């Protein structure tokens, strides 16, 4: 089994099925996929279709419901709040995702290197934050960010530092990035580590016979083998960044003035529908965000795969 899985050419991230070896084309497969698709249709496709339907209407508190065509889309495309929130999450994923994946990669390589004392302890310890619910994680970090009585305040007092308020307007995005990084380093590390573990030992033997050093092994053996895992981690991080919601919305009670109601596109859509009852416009925003996310995920996947070829 080991050999079989390593044999298959990697790199076609999410590019769909390779041809099954021998199987004629018939409907048998549907019997297996049908249960998934039924539930999937109910909980995802139907709401998406319903959202698309809603996006063509406008319902007012006074005046009722009316068909408006693409007016909501027109409004969204020129909505500065929407684009500000898109800009913010774009900045977030351009900065946070590489840092997080970089640290995770480093940790995975370190644990895999066999040069670490207590490597299995490290593996579990770094992975543990992934098990902490985002609600709990945000409550914890929110406390530690406190400049008066929190950890930051304690450090400032004790060492006479002047760490700026992590929830002040210039730092709040970085502080949220820190929480997300903390939550997901372990997850990505394990993703990478697992990919490293299936590299056949023969490769290392061959490399060391050639006199290759650790860094050369990393560059020519480990990194190519890791690329698909990095692509997967990248795609999920992109989707995660654009869907940023839990962390800022829970921190909002601690930083009311620096986390606006349109901090992320998702928060904007949420506030529009749940506070403002603008269900139609909210649905429009959701669809546009979905389309943009899908396109970027596609680009990440393609760029990752192309290098492999």
């Amino acid at each position, binding site marked *: 089994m080991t050999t079989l899985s390593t044999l298959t050419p990697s790199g076609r991230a999410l590019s769909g099925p390779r041809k099954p070896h021998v199987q004629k084309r018939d409907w048998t497969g549907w019997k297996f996929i049908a249960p998934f698709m039924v539930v999937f249709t109910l909980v995802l496709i139907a709401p998406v279709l319903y959202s698309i339907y809603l996006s063509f209407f406008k319902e007012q508190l006074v005046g009722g419901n009316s068909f408006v065509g693409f007016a909501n889309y027109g409004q969204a495309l020129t909505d500065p709040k929407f684009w500000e929130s898109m800009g913010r999450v774009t900045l977030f994923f351009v900065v946070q995702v590489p840092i997080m994946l970089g640290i995770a990669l480093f940790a995975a390589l370190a644990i895999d290197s066999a040069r670490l004392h207590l490597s299995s302890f490290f593996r579990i310890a770094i992975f543990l934050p992934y098990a902490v619910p985002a609600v709990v994680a945000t409550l914890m970090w929110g406390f530690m960010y406190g400049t008066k009585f929190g950890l930051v305040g304690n450090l400032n007092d004790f060492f006479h530092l002047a760490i700026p308020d992590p929830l002040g307007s210039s730092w709040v995005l970085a502080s949220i990035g820190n929480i997300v990084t903390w939550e997901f380093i372990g997850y990505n590390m394990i993703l990478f580590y697992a990919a490293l573990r299936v590299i056949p030992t023969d490769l290392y033997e061959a490399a060391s016979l050639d006199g290759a050093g650790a860094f050369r092994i990393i560059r020519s053996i480990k990194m190519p083998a890791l690329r698909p895992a990095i692509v997967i981690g990248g795609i999920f991080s992109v989707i995660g960044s654009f869907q940023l919601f839990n962390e800022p919305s829970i921190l909002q009670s601690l930083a009311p003035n620096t*986390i606006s109601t349109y901090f992320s596109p998702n928060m904007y859509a949420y506030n529009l529908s749940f*506070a403002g009852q603008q269900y139609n416009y909210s649905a429009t925003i959701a669809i546009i965000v979905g389309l943009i996310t899908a396109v970027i995920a596609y680009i990440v996947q393609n760029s990752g795969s192309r290098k492999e070829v």
Partner: protein
Amino acid sequence: MKSPHSTRKALRRTAVVVATGLALSMSLAACSGSGTGSTAASTASAADITAALNEKSTITVWAWAPAVADIATAFEKEHPNVTVKVVNAGTGNDQYIKLQNAIKAGSGAPDIAQIEYYALPQFALSKSLADLSAYGFDSFASEYTDSTWGSVKLGDGIYALPQDSGPMAMFYNKAVFDQYGLTVPTTWDEYIATAKKLHAANPKAYITNDTGDAGFTTSMIWQAGGKPFTTTDSTKVSINLQDEGSKKFADTWNTLLSNDLLAATPSWSDEWYKGLGDGTIATLNIGAWMPGNLETGVKEASGNWRVAPMPTYKAGDTASAENGGGGDAILEQSTNKLVAAGFLQYMNEGAGTQISIDAGGFPSTVADLNSDKFLNATSDYFGGQKINEVLVQSAKDVVPGWSYLPFQVYSNSIFKDTVGQAYAAKSDINAGLTAWQKATADYGNQQGFTVTSK
């Protein structure tokens, strides 16, 4: 505020007796009969309600006030056929979101919901709430303080019965005042001077905390005599957040903000509770329901806090405002409105009021406010002070004529995007208020209201 007359004394007696569990079989008809002179219509409704309460039924109540569960238990003892299911569906806005969703979906709403005064117009004007005049509840007007009754009477309808109220007062940490030789300010100018003196004496201490809060700001504008929001025939709205009162408040608060005299600690955070305990937050201008929260949340400062009337803009004036508090409304979706009306009356007009008071709620019923027992109650937490004397006086001093927007919940939700930015940048609050007004007016227009923005 009129003094209670004999019928109300009777009501109070009933309430006390029921609350102590001695008159469990007291019928609701007797309670309502002890109200003010009932009209013919309300008598008929009262009979209908009584009849409905004798049949087997279940109603659901969404409320986060802890007393409601106790009130339901007491009610069920009197009306064994009725089951009252009390559900805590979230505090404040969390619950309104669920309520709004259920209304939008056309099902799933409770029979009765707790709704704060500021949110009431939004639900009432969208025809989601039952007009309680149909049950004769409009005759209860004189039993409640003017400000709370004014909050539930929207247009010609009554859309909730007031439960608690929050006339504002200045809570101050006497230990801190003594330590730094401060005197209790009676005007806002003195308040600013005190703030400076305190902060100079101890740079870690602040006169109060404020990071920009819609509820607080609107209450402060109210106290300053501002009337920024007016609604006529439910769809015509006018907004002026730069009227005289709004400016008066903003100018005063600008001084505190720009001189760095406000602790940037969000209310209700754990840092806030810490600050209230260790003296770094020296005063709070807040609703009369605060004592209970201090007692449970800031135990370590027991004996330190006192209550004084709100400072005013002119020496010798008395002016107050409502901050928080709310009532309970019957949803249009309810299929059992008679039973709901019966429970609502019990809860907020009958025996329930005393249970609510015992649980720390500040009443809105005139009889309770003026009872000797209530006025003379001393609190060990407040060093033996008769705090209710101050708080009840505040209820009488509330500036009349205030109203909220029919989309205040949304408007408050975007407060932090506008006025909050002024707080964050320590810049002019007036500019923030103007931005808030514009965003609110835009929303109103988008939703089909006719908004006049002055």
